[in-house]
């Protein structure tokens, strides 16, 4: 644990110095890649463990974001609620299967605030239907608060904010 504290303090110092946030951004990019591949590779059961015990996960429109609305298309306040979403997708909903594919941009670290790292990552999310048709589900941005824990970086907040005004299809699982 001391080493984690040291890492945080180093990040904070480098931020204060206006210095090198690139390596921190690279670590968060790795985290993001890990995250989206768990979804895209249909291993979403292990995704909720990437969140802290107290967390907020949300998918919402840019319209809501600009209005200051807290509403989400999906809104989970705990890893348990995220796992419930996964269970529902597997067992409790009637829908044809879809394949999800995230295309991520590089990550920008905006600031480090105590143990919280505020970061943004652009993303395009494509969806392919059971019939094989691919559509762009959303052009979006992840607005994340990532935090250092003894187990490594974890998401404390993840807001997937989509520019697309009208979703062209349902959202069947956390993205």
């Amino acid at each position: 644990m001391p080493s984690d504290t040291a890492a945080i303090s180093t990040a904070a110092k480098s931020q204060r110095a206006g210095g090198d946030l690139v390596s921190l951004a690279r670590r968060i990019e790795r985290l993001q890649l890990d995250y989206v591949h768990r979804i895209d590779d249909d291993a979403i059961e292990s995704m909720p463990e990437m969140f802290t015990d107290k967390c907020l996960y949300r998918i919402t429109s840019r319209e809501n974001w600009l209005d200051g609305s807290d509403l989400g298309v999906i809104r989970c306040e705990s890893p348990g609620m995220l796992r419930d979403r996964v269970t529902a997708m597997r067992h409790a909903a009637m829908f044809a299967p879809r394949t999800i594919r995230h295309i991520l941009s590089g990550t920008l670290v905006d600031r480090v605030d105590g143990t919280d790292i505020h970061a943004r990552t652009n993303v395009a999310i494509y969806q392919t239907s059971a019939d094989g048709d691919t559509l762009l589900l959303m052009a979006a941005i992840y607005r994340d608060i990532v935090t250092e824990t003894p187990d490594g970086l974890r998401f404390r907040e993840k807001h997937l904010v989509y520019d697309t005004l009208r979703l062209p299809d349902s959202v069947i699982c956390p993205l």
Partner: protein
Amino acid sequence: MDGTAAHPGKNFSKDDIARAAALAASGDDASRVAFRVYQDPAIYAAELERVFYGPTWNYVGLAAEVPNVGDWRRNMIGEREVLLVRKSETEFSVLPNVCAHRGAQICQALKGNTEKAFMCPYHQWTYDHDGKLIGVPFRRGVKGNGGMPADFELSDYNLPALRVAEINGVIFASYDAATPPLDDYLGGDMKHYFTRVFDGRKLRIVGHHRQMIDCNWKLQMENLKDPYHAGLLHLFLVTFGLFRLDQKSATVLDDTGGHSALTARRSSPDEHVGNDEIASYTPDYALEDPTLLEPVMEFDDEMTLAIQTVFPSIIVQAQSNTLATRHVIPKGVGRHELIWTFFGYEDDDADRHELRLRQANLMGPAGYVTLDDAEALEISQRGVDSAPPDNEAVLVLDGDNIGSTDHLVTEAPIRGFHKQYRDLMGREIANAL
């Protein structure tokens, strides 16, 4: 993407539309509905004219969405774009978002505020909050040259404002002078359910969702008039007792049949019967975080679910503590847009607001309940599209009754919808003859 730019209803002549309307209005047994009304682009064009631009009240938004004088929002009635404008503390106008000069779209943003005047960006014609034309640049020309003719009157080029009606902060508009007053349009029973949710308290907007669904707009409306599916399709509703066919419940129709309300009281598992007939019933299914299913009583009556539809295109959802309007906007014969406006009340405390946010997980484009609906609606459209137009939907649950019931095992609200639909589609034909 087809947003507001798509207008597939434009491609038909008056004769096409008259023929299509007559075809859609035919059939006196509302328990049989020919698939052509979900397939035929000419019938869709006729619906725009005879339903959406006809003697109906169309939802255009909530007063709370335009809270300040001069606030406006874009919305759609059929394929026509309109602006909802708050022109004073208590008055609203609904204007075409189309300049009287050359037809340019006046406002491009989703919403905004204009203190005094709307100005078309193209040639800067300006209109007040009532749509009155108040300014035209270079009306008198330049140094005596050009300009508008001497007999040009600003008042000849006002935006044709729609009729507007409001009940407790919910605003409707109509193109037709013959539309009865909103209270009469709803009727007493429907006004009762409407004012149960919209009880005069100021609303707090919680947020919006917008989604495209690949099915005819009528299938969406019918789905909210169909308790049969709700008690079967939705595992979430039947397993957790949010909505079941065995509950104390009611199905209420107005005199036209076009509007309806479905209500139910939440039940506990030991009250449930008929589980063996519900394939989706899953007794072992449980949530790891059950806070989603911990509502508080919202209204003074015992009903925990009330779904109301107001013909032609608005649904009012009150499921536990998640309240929303769902606005159905037709986008061609096989598509519609669904706009969800979630709301609470201005006097909600922080806990109640949290409950509304949490329970919103049941609804919307990823809703535990409504995800099933979108999927069912799209497979309905796919099936219908691949069948002959004379094939018919069979709506005989609870016989041919088109009236209120004290149970949910009925398709009466769907039959009522088609009765009113046929009356409207047939009406102008009769006038024309």
